[in-house]
């Protein structure tokens, strides 16, 4: 602490401590604790809060698992099903994202000349100046029944009738994949960038094929970046709202849409809070799992 003050001077030190504490306490810890607390409270009118009916209850978690008490089902297959699908698809999208971004990141970090690399990075970033919602709508237009892609395929005679990309959720998966590629590419790029090019040449000189060099040299070197990119993409995909709202088929529900409904349409904040806590817990488990799989520490992930 003393060292920190001496190094930065009293003014900057105080500012840093206040700013970071404010951010941590007021913007993260207190809202999350409030949400956590709320998830265990009954949904009662504001007037009754703090009254005798305001007791801790597991009713919202029970509802998530088993549905309303009047339903005859053994478990809440609608909500649990949506949750399961959301998580599985988010995992899948994370994997596809990794496979898709890995070559790009490697190309920018180790193959391209500095000028080409800069150009590529800029052309990756610029589309993201456009709001996520607008990008989703743009994809919806592309994938629509009378949209660009269908028109091109019809013109080329590859298909006879328009494909309903929206109903097949192709549009949704494409949108979700595209929405967070930067968060995969940049951690990968950062990690690969520090790899000594001589290592790649040494491996090649020793007779290693491209594929083996990647598995033995590049991936072990970049594993912190891979873990970092995967956790971020997974969390943001599982927690995405705008893209699913715009691009999902009428039959597909993203778990965040359920949370949104509890908060906004059904006016049941405690239940929404309970559903959020469930999503957050799984996301945290996913991070821990990635750390375990890639044998990295939390410090390496955030680097």
């Amino acid at each position, binding site marked *: 602490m003393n060292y920190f003050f001496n190094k930065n001077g009293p003014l900057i030190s105080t500012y840093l401590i206040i700013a970071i504490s404010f951010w941590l306490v007021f913007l993260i810890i207190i809202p999350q604790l409030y949400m956590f607390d709320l998830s265990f409270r009954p949904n009662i009118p504001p007037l009754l809060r703090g009254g005798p009916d305001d007791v801790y209850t597991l009713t919202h978690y029970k509802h998530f698992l088993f549905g309303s008490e009047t339903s005859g089902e053994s478990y809440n297959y609608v909500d649990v099903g949506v949750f399961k699908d959301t998580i599985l698809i988010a995992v899948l999208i994370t994997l596809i994202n990794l496979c898709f971004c890995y070559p790009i990141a490697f190309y920018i970090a180790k193959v391209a000349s500095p000028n080409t690399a800069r150009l590529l990075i800029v052309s990756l970033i610029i589309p993201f100046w456009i709001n996520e919602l607008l990008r989703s709508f743009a994809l919806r237009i592309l994938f629509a029944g009378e949209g660009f892609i269908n028109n091109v395929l019809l013109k080329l005679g590859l298909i006879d009738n328009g494909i309903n990309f929206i109903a097949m959720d192709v549009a949704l998966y494409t949108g979700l994949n595209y929405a967070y590629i930067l968060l995969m590419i940049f951690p990968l790029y950062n990690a690969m960038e520090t790899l*000594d090019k*001589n*290592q790649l*040449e*040494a*491996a*090649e*000189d*020793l*007779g*290693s*094929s491209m594929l*083996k060099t990647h598995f*033995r*040299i590049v991936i*072990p*070197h970049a594993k912190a970046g891979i873990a970092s990119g995967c956790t971020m993409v997974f969390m943001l995909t599982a927690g995405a709202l705008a893209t699913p709202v715009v691009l999902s088929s009428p039959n597909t529900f993203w778990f965040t849409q359920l949370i949104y409904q509890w908060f906004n349409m059904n006016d049941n904040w405690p239940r929404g809070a309970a559903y959020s806590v469930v999503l957050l817990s799984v996301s945290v488990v996913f991070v821990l799992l990635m750390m375990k799989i890639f044998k990295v520490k939390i410090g390496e992930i955030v680097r």
Partner: protein
Amino acid sequence: MSADVELQNVSVSFGNFYAAKNVSVKIEKGEFFSFLGPSGCGKTTLLRAISGFSEPSDGKILIGNQDMAGIGPNKRPTSLIFQNLALFPLMSVADNIAFSLEVRGTGKLQRRKRADELLELVALSGQGDKKVHELSGGQRQRVAIARALAIEPEVLLLDEPLSALDLKLRQKMRIELREIQKRVGITFIYITHDQGEALTMSDRIAVMNQGELEQIGSCHNVYESPCTPFVATFVGENNAFYGTVSAVDGDMVNVSADGNNFSAKAGDLGEGKKYTFKKNDKVIMFVRPESIFLKDQNNQADNVFTADFKAIEFEGNLKNIYMSINGKQNVRCSVSNAVDTTVLSNSKNVELKFSSRDAVVLPVGPLAVD
């Protein structure tokens, strides 16, 4: 197995810039051959062309009489040791060494056996399970050599691998490298800017400057009979006396420089031929500092001259005496530490001498930049 390496008119260009120009040399089987030159002279470019990481823009590279055009580095019978060694930091020492076997699908036990053999060859027995960062600089060096030898290359290419070591270790590794080379008996091609390394280890040396070969020869040949002023000044130290030819008598040339008249032998042109000079040719006469003696030293010398004392420098085993003739021509003379030089300080007209056999006359040309 060992192979010879032949470069036939090899040029490597990047755009308009020629990193190597028309280089032809035949490196014999089992030879320790060094490319010596200042940084940026194109020696690393040549090495990369031999190893297959770049293709020559002109000319041919033959290894064991086989044209290497279009053959990638992983398919050539060469193995490269990188300047920074490029060991794999996340693997154990044994895994590093056996990497080439691993990627060829050799079984685990056999890999370990081979790694242990190679560790023994480089005097690192029992260190296989360590991580690379746990080794010292010299040990890492040896791991890099072992890893390169694991593929049983016919030619080992070394890109200044000793440059990161401190002096003592470098001297020790020179001897070890030479010994390893003799033991495995394969061709070593060594790149260095350090003439000491080149002279102590090599069978033959090629001196390079600005992408071109200046001279190829044995260590003695390059040191004692430089073909160009660049070689004369890049390899070892040299005094350059600018002058004109006053008389020619066979291989002996009389040079007048700054009022002195010296006698010296005509320089070698290479391939057993000597330069021929005419009267009034502009020339440079080179005399090594260790070939110039003080007058009362007991050495044979037929050239005698005087110079003004400027400074003396103590280097441990010897002393460098800096002098000048008429304030223009600098002369440096190196004498053993045992020689008494106390009388020299502040004296004008120090009497010096050297033998005409130790002086080489070459046409005027660029010197190595100091």
